[in-house]
């Protein structure tokens, strides 16, 4: 546990000493601000639904930039040797890094709260719907980070890590569309179940379903387990 905290603190220091975290947070907030304003004026309704959908697409492409350095950076900086020989368990390293990246996600989320100010000032939004949307957003973001972290462990080139992660995440996002082409019920069900987008849609509509929560948590857990397993195998 203390080992995980040590890794976590190191990750946070590293994030804020490199420009990438600032860049990602800034681009995300500018993008979200733009979509929020656009949606507000377009629909004239005090809701975050459309904005949440846009935010999801934004993090699918931005979070790989947060996760890409997690292990690639350790390989190329030749610090992996230290990390693997310190008295740290593999899961402590994996979770410490994941929590560090998740903290950046949380900061990004907190930044979007500024959009809620005009929403509540001039409108009458559904608080529970917005709450569910944020939960969905964070869960989706965590799954994206876990997938990105796994791919980061596979290569020592950060750019390659990001370039693999983005299409993989986009595939999981759009895989739901494939169900319309399927005749078999099973395949339709499978594609719908695997879709990041369809589960997210539930949250955006205000449905906080345990199935959706579990889906993202299990997806993250699978990616992190693969990550730890790969590191162990690499020894």
């Amino acid at each position: 546990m203390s080992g995980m905290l040590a890794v976590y603190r190191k990750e946070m220091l590293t994030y804020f000493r490199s420009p990438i975290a600032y860049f990602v947070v800034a681009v995300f907030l500018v993008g979200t601000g733009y979509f929020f304003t656009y949606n507000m004026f377009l629909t004239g309704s005090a809701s975050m639904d459309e904005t949440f959908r846009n935010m999801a697409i934004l993090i699918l492409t931005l979070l790989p930039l947060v996760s890409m350095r997690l292990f690639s950076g350790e390989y190329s900086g030749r610090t992996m040797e230290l990390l693997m020989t310190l008295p740290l368990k593999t899961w402590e390293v994996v979770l410490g890094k994941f929590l560090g990246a998740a903290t950046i996600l949380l900061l990004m989320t907190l930044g979007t709260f500024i959009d809620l100010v005009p929403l509540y000032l001039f409108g009458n939004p559904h608080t529970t719907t917005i709450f569910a949307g944020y939960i969905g957003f964070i869960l989706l973001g965590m799954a994206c980070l876990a997938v990105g972290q796994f791919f980061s462990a596979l290569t020592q080139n950060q750019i390659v890590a990001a370039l693999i992660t983005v299409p993989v995440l986009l595939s999981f996002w759009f895989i739901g569309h494939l169900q319309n082409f399927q005749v078999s019920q099973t395949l339709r069900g499978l594609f719908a179940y695997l879709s990041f987008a369809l589960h997210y849609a539930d949250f955006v509509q205000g449905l906080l379903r345990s199935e959706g929560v579990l889906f993202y948590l299990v997806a993250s857990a699978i990616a992190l387990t693969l990550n730890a397993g790969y590191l162990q195998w690499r020894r």
Partner: protein
Amino acid sequence: MNTPTAAISLESVTKRFGAKTIIHDISFSVAKGEIVGFLGPNGAGKTTTMRMIAGFTTPSTGRITVAGCDMATQNEEAAEKIGYLPEHPPLYDTLDVSQYLRFVARAKGVPRNEFKSELDRVATACRLENVLNREIYKLSKGYRQRVGLAQALLGKPEVLLLDEPTAGLDPGQIQETREVIRSFGEQHAVLLSTHVLPEVTLICSRVAIINQGRLLAIDSPVSLRRASELTNRILLTANAPADALRAELLCVAGVIAVTAHPVPGVDGMLNVECQTDAREGIEAAVARAVARRWDLHRLERQQPTLENIFLRYVSGSSPQETHQ
């Protein structure tokens, strides 16, 4: 040879990458309070062996125990007892020195109340007081190496593994670093790899010579030197006909073999190398034999330095087995 008290022990360790065998059946041990030098040319397998002892990679076959822990099953317990400086100091460039050392101390589980004293101790030992608040990417190569060493010393590990600890340091820093290692080695087990020979003679109690993944010899520097005295050499330059000189020299008791090459550009001058045994005064006998009939210009009995021994082992021309 592997006593239970050995801090590091390797038993027939082999490492293969695919079909290629990098390390062939290496066995040796390092006791507490001992500094062992790991000597070999680049690519001999020093770093791979170090990595296996540190637990970064696992051997294909064989057993490694460090401080009583089997590296195959008790990797994490062992990691607490190992201080490891890899070949390239593993530094986070964006952190400053004290943040970095604090991270390592935390990861090593140094108790909270000992934090400050531990950091001070290693910073003083490695002369880092002036750069503690500087970002690591701004440091010179010598400082980077010393931050790496400081990291390894944190938490007073029982076993210290140093992969070329003095690489990139200037002579003054090398001296200081050796002192640090020497004082540390009094109560701990140290295995340091190097291709700098004087280092080994100065601080190591034993030397392991490795080449192409095979352990060629392990002994004290003094014994290795003595072992090689069996194949002493005398070099001389004389103005003489080659055949007659060779015949004359081979008559001297103790001379085993003679090779002669003409000195380029000087007519009739020969450079001669005599393989001799270790008997006393043989150079005087050789000198007398030559000077009786020809002009002797130079004669030198070559001291068996560790360098020669090393090269002899590495080039595979060593005729004798050393005792373990």
